[in-house]
């Protein structure tokens, strides 16, 4: 959906995996991540990114790995061995990207988080609630935001975003 200077699109083919650290084995998993993906384990609320891979730290002991390159659960498992607990979360979520100069103004209508660049910069990630829908929000860069919300309520979530876009345009 293009509305004025805003583009709202579904990001198809996302694969999302939760990755949890086995008790007492955090160094092994973090080292494996570094070796395999050349990425440092991010701090909570931040993400580590390579070309088509986002590692989003949701809390101290869990991150979400978002792959845009078709990596499957089995691929991911093979790459990490037994260093972490993986659960395929791909179908739990819907994936929307909102981009354009007024994306912040649109999100302002439903997002309680301060999205000013000083407060929520590129590659920041947060869990929040928008219009009663649990949401993972990530700033890809500039005015582009990736929004993840529960798949079952995707229609309500889409409506919330679309309504915001229409209301500010």
């Amino acid at each position, binding site marked *: 959906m293009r509305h004025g200077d805003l583009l709202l699109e579904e990001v198809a083919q996302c694969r999302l995996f939760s990755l949890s650290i*086995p008790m007492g084995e955090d160094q092994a998993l973090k080292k494996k991540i570094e070796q395999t993906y050349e990425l440092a384990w991010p701090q909570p609320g931040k993400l580590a990114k390579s070309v088509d891979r986002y590692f989003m730290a949701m809390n101290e002991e869990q991150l979400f790995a978002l792959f845009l390159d078709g990596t499957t659960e089995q691929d991911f498992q093979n790459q990490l061995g037994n260093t972490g*607990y993986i659960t395929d979360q791909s179908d739990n979520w819907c994936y929307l990207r909102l981009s354009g100069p007024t994306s912040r103004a649109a999100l302002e*209508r*439903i*997002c309680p988080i301060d999205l000013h660049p000083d407060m929520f910069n590129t590659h920041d990630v947060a869990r929040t609630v928008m219009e*009663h829908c649990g949401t993972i929000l990530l700033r890809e860069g500039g005015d582009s935001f990736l929004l993840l919300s529960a798949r*079952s*309520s995707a229609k309500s979530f889409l409506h919330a975003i679309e309504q915001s876009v*229409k209301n500010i345009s």
Partner: protein
Amino acid sequence: MTEGYRIEGGLINRDKKLTFSFNGQKKYGYQGDSLASALLASGDTIVARSFKYHRPRGIFSAGSEEPNALVHLGRGALCEPNTKATTVELYDGLEANPQNYRLSVHFDLMAINDFLSPLLTAGFYYKTFMWPKYFWEKIYEPIIRNSAGMGKLSGHSDPSHYDKGFLHCDLLIIGAGPAGLIAALEAGKAGLRVILADEDFLPGGRLNSETYQIDQKPATLWIEETVEQLRNMPNIRLMTRMTVYGCYDHGIYGAVEQIAPEVLEKSKPRQILWRIYSKRALLCAGAIERSIAFGNNDRPAIMLAGAVRAYVNRWAVAPGKAIGIFTNNDDGWQTARDLRAKNIPVSALIDTRRDASDEEIDGVEIIRGERITDCMGRKRLRAVKLTNGRLIAMDTLAVSGGWNPNIHLTCHQGAKAVWDEKISAFLPARLAGLSVAGSANGTFALGDVLKEAYQAAQKIAKDLDFTPRAGKPPQANNEAYSLSPLWHVKESRKRAWVDLQNDVTYKDIALAHQEGFRSVEHLKRYTTLGMGTDQGKNSNVIGLALMAEQRGLPIEKIGTTSFRPPYTPVSIGAFGGRSRGKNFRPYRLTPSHQWAEERNAVFVETGQWLRAQWFPLASETHWRQSVDREVTMIRASVGICDVTTLGKIDIQGRDSAPFLNRVYANGFAKLPVGKVRYGLMLREDGISMDDGTTARLAENHFVMTTTTANAGTVFRHLEFCRQCLWPNDDVHLISTTDGWAQYAVAGPNARKLLQNGIVDKIFDISNDAFPFMGCANITVCNGVLARLFRISFSGELAYEIAVPTRYGNSLVRALMEAGKNFDVTPYGTEALGVMRIEKGHPAGNELNGRTTARHLGMEKMVSKKKDCIGNVLSERPYLNRENDYRLMGFKPVDRKEILSTAGSHFIAIGDTPNMDNDQGWMSSVAFSPTLGHSIGLGFILGGEQRIGETVRAFDPVHSKDIPVEIVSPHFIDPEGKRMRA
């Protein structure tokens, strides 16, 4: 066109003429007008009728404190009653009408109330209409309600759109008058993120209505330049038409923004309700002028003196052609000067102070030490009478009783205002996080206002670790302001209004005191002083002063009522925002929702989910026909039910098995890989919490299912156990409810259906290879990853098959195709419910937060060989009484009787139905098409020992009293042969 009162100058755009209507008459105004200014320009004096006495009323103020000029704005469903004409920005096509009258606003039949006023004093309805008693509700109250009040609701749903939003800032400045503007500028230059909010559509506050100078130039020019600077600063957000209506904890403020009429489209929100998160706030809300109570001081064309200046200077409207001024302070003199500067005739300046300034104003008769006792002119002021008996002709009177700092928001968190003798007004209490500057802080002189706000902004910047720039505030003269408080002209013989909006007079306050009301709060409630849409902005202080006078106490000893949110009325629509209709809250759909819709499914909301209840055929006219057919077909062949909504929790970790062993009452430590087990979860107090199945997919990997309703509760409970009770265990949880589409395939032909092209042939699902309570990761439909569970809620041979959600829609269609030869039947939650009752499986009705495992007949599941949550407290003697409630089955003795509702209570035959004789309750009922009669599940004292006994199922709510026989809760296949087949 009538625009006889328009004068030169002002801040209106004469190039943009606007058409509007009032009371059905077409009128004109200009861009920049308010509805009130345009009405005054058109010569409209009477714009409303008063609340109780239906006296003609005119425009009294120029802002949100307006008590009189309440109008119906818009028409039909869009009509908004009680709108203050003084705050409505004029737009082309605006339609407004007066309110609260019968016949005409100029000839109101209800004005008879005015003549009956001796009978209608404060609290009259507490004392009258006492007899006959039953007349009150049927006769008196409807008449009173119909006569009193304000505007009328349209009675239609509001078609307007509303929205909400969230704002964040370092500093919220409330009010864009001189204090707010200079504070915003300084804070902005220091680098703070600032929101500057003002309820007016034009920034500048009172300065727009005055003729002051700042830095040797007209204040209006200074406003323009300052606003221009602010608009060019990216860290400043200037939001006009935005009223900050509430101050809440932790720096959170509520505000409502009106969208400018010229940009408002029908499809766009007309108001936005903002929640503002601020690190600090600065209240620069200015001050509100108050009146003086004197005889007939409510006549049309009696206005506040500051409002008269506003109409003259800002809106270029002369409110009258012979204007008098009545004041007890220096500020009233400014009105005379401004009027004369515009060549508007001034009848007299009456200052109550004998020692008032000896200044002379050209063309103005100045009368010192006199007071007005009466005003003549019912539909418009004609003359006033002074204490010395002199009559002075005038068509407008400007009154100034002094100014009250606008401290409303400082009281919202319970802080009490402080009386200040010097200005005879309340000052704000000191609050953490909320500073006050300018007139809102009792600093009235412009030079001092600018300096104080400038310094306040600098201090806030420093407090927040910003560096304010070096400099000094703009310069302005400090105009004189001294007053001699005067609340009421005692010489007045006529009614003297204290609260115009609620028709509260001096006499009412005296009466309240006479009748023993001493507390300010009681005074308010007895007389209605300070209620309504203006919340006593003009009247509260006068009322308090008069009560103090009655009690012979100083005002500070009387106390004050507390201001509560909202500062000004906020429409319910704004609070609702966009959450209307089906978007009131999110709804959840399963991936086969569209498939179900195609089959005419009737949906029910279960939590947020929409689930198919049944799938009616064209020939079916009653839901029972559909449900009976579905049950019958499943018992005979095979059916498919969408069970995607069940909660699913992925559990991994080395300690997962012992973890489950502790959260479930029954044992899970030794559950083999590839097996599912039914589990019962208890609360800490031993009461049943939830049930479900958990499958062991690998040594350290389990998948738990919960009931649909309790998915969130159980997940939260497990997280509590994991993080707080056993934080050293290696257990990791994550919800996968939305990640898997799951379908129950139930009935004698379930296996055959799955073997017909669904389950890939390399997987053997024969009874031997995949027996009851088995589970496996498999593939379906040529390679799609799936999970298969052999579990049964219906009591039939059954499977639950799960695929990633993206395949859900395809799978259900494939299942239907594969089942064609078996007359496969889709079934909904009703058939599911019927079958589980037939089978005696407890569900939400039975796990109701009051029942134990023992009540449910599952006491043997609470393993005593291990510890688990709820185990210890389930041992309490009361929960283990002999002859306690037990879950049993019930059949009507007369099989033709229909058990249509759960909730009946069991009473012994011959006993009186009362609490003492209550023996239990029916928790679930259904018509069993398999048995051909109604059945029920319920809890009854004594349980199994009473099988064969007859009791009454007594339901006083539905007037039902049906004898039922106590039977086993397992109506169908009690040995479980079918599901193990």
